């Protein structure tokens, strides 16, 4: 489904991704862990098509299509969703109006007619319940004045509404309380199917108790340097990243 090969990307002349490889197949959940500043959000941004990042080498294919050729909204249309680490506020635009516009734009991209109001409302109710998003939040302006946790929950709500093929979750667990963590994870698990896939960026193994990954990758200095199973996350939580750095240095010697 997603094939990243030798991906290099820079921002303002500074190279952040330094030859990254990753392959994700339908039905899989991949966790990406790594120290602050290692390039996790950069990877997410490059996948979503943020202009500020310049791809200097490598390729990204999504379902056989060259993803890097597509505009951000086209990528969304193809089924790429990014749950932002820092969701943006849009004052005066109601959450419902926003997601309705998004749903219909994506449908238009796929050659589908707009959802009838009734169908939309049914979908809305269903997904709202899935992530236990209160009706009050749905009616407020997009993320405006939302608490950190509410913003994250709203991201997952939007993801549920858009039902992507590939969901990239950038630290969606940060700032969530225990209950919210459970609810958000439950939401993701409900959305999981054999046809879609998730890339979950996190610092904490705790999330992975709820959303069980098939693979855990360590992103270090712009490259994936280690891949393992769920147990790798436990090991990282216990020992941090130093031992991996050491391992790498030894390999070099």
């Amino acid at each position, binding site marked *: 489904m997603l094939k990243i090969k030798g991906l290099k990307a820079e921002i303002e002349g500074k190279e952040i991704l330094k030859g990254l490889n990753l392959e994700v197949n339908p039905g899989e959940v991949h966790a990406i862990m790594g120290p602050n500043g290692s390039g996790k959000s950069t990877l997410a941004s490059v996948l979503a098509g943020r202009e500020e990042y310049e791809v200097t080498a490598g390729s990204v294919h999504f379902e056989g299509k060259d993803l890097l050729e597509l505009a951000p*909204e086209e990528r969304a249309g193809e089924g790429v969703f990014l749950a932002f680490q820092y969701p943006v506020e*849009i*004052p005066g*635009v109601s959450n419902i*109006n926003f997601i309705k*516009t998004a749903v219909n*734009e994506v449908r238009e991209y796929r050659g589908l007619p707009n959802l009838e109001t009734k169908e939309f409302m049914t979908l809305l109710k269903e997904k709202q319940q899935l992530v236990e998003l209160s009706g009050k939040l749905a009616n407020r302006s997009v993320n405006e004045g939302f608490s950190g946790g509410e913003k994250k929950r709203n991201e997952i709500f939007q993801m549920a509404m858009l039902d992507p093929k590939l969901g990239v979750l950038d630290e969606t667990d940060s700032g969530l309380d225990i209950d919210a963590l459970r609810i958000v994870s439950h939401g993701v698990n409900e959305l999981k199917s054999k046809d879609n896939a998730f890339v979950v960026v996190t610092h904490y193994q705790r999330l992975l108790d709820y959303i069980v990954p098939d693979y855990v990758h360590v992103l270090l200095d712009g490259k994936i340097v280690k891949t393992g199973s769920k147990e790798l996350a436990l090991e990282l939580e216990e020992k941090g990243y130093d031992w991996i750095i050491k391992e790498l240095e030894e390999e070099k010697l």
Partner: protein
Amino acid sequence: MKEEDKIIEEATSGEYKYGFVSDIESEKSQKGLTEDTIRFISEKKNEPSWLLDWRLKAFKVWEQMEEPDWAHISYPKPDFQDIIYYAAPKPKKKYESLDEVDPEILKTFERLGVPIEEQKALAGVAVDVVMDSVSVATTFKDKLSELGIIFCSFSEAVQEHPELVQKYIGSVVPQRDNFYSALNSAVFSDGSFCYIPKGVRCPMELSTYFRINEANTGQFERTLIIADEGSYVSYLEGCTAPQRDENQLHAAVVEIIALDRAEVKYSTVQNWYPGDKKGRGGIYNFVTKRGICHHHSKISWTQVETGSAVTWKYPSCILKGDHSVGEFFSVAVTNNMQQADTGTKMIHLGKNTKSTIVSKGISAGKSQNSYRGLVKVAKGAQGARNFSQCDSLLIGAKCGAHTFPYIECQNKSAKVEHEATTSKIGEDQLFYCNQRGIKTDKAIGLIVNGFCKNVMDNLPMEFAIEAKKLLEISLEGSVG
């Protein structure tokens, strides 16, 4: 003759009423502005002598005035001797069907969501539409006259209700108020007149759009609205459909009188041709709009300005009566080379008067958008309150937004608050929308409409829906 037939005949023979003669020469006044031009206009319109005198007086005043200069607007000054001040209203060019209408215009209509019948009427498609509109207009007129509401063209009011016109014309915007009001007073062509009797609540929105069959009002339009004691009216001016006009200069005057306990809501959507990307050929729009509030009355201005090359406009309220309320809600969008200098004046004279100003300026392209507002509290305005909020939104780096709030307060008990913000549509916001599948143009529309929400909420429902789309369309292509 059936009532309906009468109206049809009136509509189709309208030209005669306005002094249309087949002789081409007498159809238009000479170019230029002299006392004779004014006599000619007044005679053609068969006006009473007091009105001719009033026009002549205005002309004398105007001759002594100088065209003003404003800091944030620049444009080539019109040559006032090169304008034809009177042309017998010609029927608009008629088309047989929508197929003949400029497809660009139709595209815009469609995207604005204008119903097909209205599209035809607006584009000037003949026959069936006229019939249709006549029947609409008939039921409309019947209902209004039952309630004693007068809603007609200014010329008609001069003939039918001279006592009202004479009493109130120039009572809110005096001739010498400014250069353009003086000019308008001397040469105004036509416009709208509205009177709501005591205690009557007008049951529908009065829209200039419904007064079809009525000749083009021309470049010097004049509107007079009188809301008698305890009455209410919501009045809509303009429409979202793009309007072109051969006349580059437009100088309208609007006067509103809200007598004790009356309430007038005046909504405008202005979409004059702004000129091409380089600003060529756009309309200059210099408007004087003002209302006077008597005791416990309220005037509320809501405007959405997207058109014109140059806009200069300050709908204002004179809060003369105690406990009267003035409101101003404005969205002004400028794109490409457009220039807008708009705002309001709230003049607090009465005790416990209240005013609210909410101004949202949106600039894109290389445009310049200024808010200019005056809040004046007179000595006697014990307990006056004002709240002003002026927000500017910038799209791109080449446009400008300016805020000039003036406050003159002569009463210590008054409370005047002013808030202002300037923000940019952030890359972050756009990217967030894009990531959700929303194209940039649409995202801008969404963000801009969010920014304007508390103004748009004041527009009557249907108007608001069209105005929202209008905002999207007028900002298309302003990023990337």
